[in-house]
């Protein structure tokens, strides 16, 4: 086999890790059951074929919708078309779970004790409170103190009716 043959030629190039697959397979079965090696190999090949099949269909779904990137929604649609609609619920749940975990990770990394709702804000609660006090003080000063600009004597806070 010369080097040129290795460049992405056969479908054997990318397969799934045997140990992980074996684990999934064994978890399905009673503990005392053995799986012949050639059966394991065949199961792994089937899984790769499954990915091929669903990928092709997802690609077509994506084409039909005139999108440029294969998104999870396309994959879910492909599963349905191919007769694997029984998987959709669990797959979607896992996807949602992943989104949740990713979001939590990015929130933790944003630093500060602001909490979830002010992910984009620069202020912490203490800072916001201080700012508010400052603005009150400014407003009070404007109301009480005199300055060059003449004020309309509309508001007489000390007047009693």
């Amino acid at each position: 086999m010369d080097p040129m043959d290795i460049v992405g030629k056969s479908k054997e190039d990318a397969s799934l890790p045997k140990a992980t697959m074996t684990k999934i397979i064994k978890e399905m079965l009673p503990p005392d059951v053995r799986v012949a090696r050639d059966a394991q190999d065949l199961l792994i090949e089937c899984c790769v074929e499954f990915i091929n099949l669903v990928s092709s269909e997802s690609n077509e779904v994506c084409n039909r919708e005139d999108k440029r990137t294969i998104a999870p929604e396309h994959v879910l649609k492909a599963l349905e078309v191919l007769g694997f609609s029984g998987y959709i619920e669990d797959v979607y749940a896992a996807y949602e779970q992943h989104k949740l975990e990713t979001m939590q990770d990015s929130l933790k990394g944003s630093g500060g004790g602001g909490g979830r709702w002010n992910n984009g804000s620069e202020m912490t609660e203490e800072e916001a409170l201080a700012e508010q006090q400052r603005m009150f003080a400014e407003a009070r000063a404007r109301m009480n103190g005199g300055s060059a600009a003449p004020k309309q004597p509309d508001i007489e806070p000390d007047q009693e009716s």
Partner: protein
Amino acid sequence: MRQAGTYSGMLAVMSGKNVPHSLPLARIKKIMKKSGNDVKMISGEAPIVFSKACELFIEELTRRSWMMTLKGKRRTLHKDDVASAIAATDIFDFLVNLIDDNGREVEGGFGRRGEPTS
């Protein structure tokens, strides 16, 4: 005999069945890219969806194969059991190319799809 894992971090240590994303996403993406001649760009989240779908697929195929094993009153799951399960299940029709009548593996498979017909 167990193989030593060459990928770190991917093997979830938990013993429960609901282990998310056990399969390496990069590998899945690679397979996806090779599945056709003009595969579009793949979003970062698509392999995650695939990972779970593959798990479910393997579980179903294993379960059905196992039922064949039980029929034969054996405790070892053989390749023939997998072949029988494939033959008996409609949605696994795409796998018939991987087995022949003798239950042996055949080269080739669904492989690359041709041009999409619109």
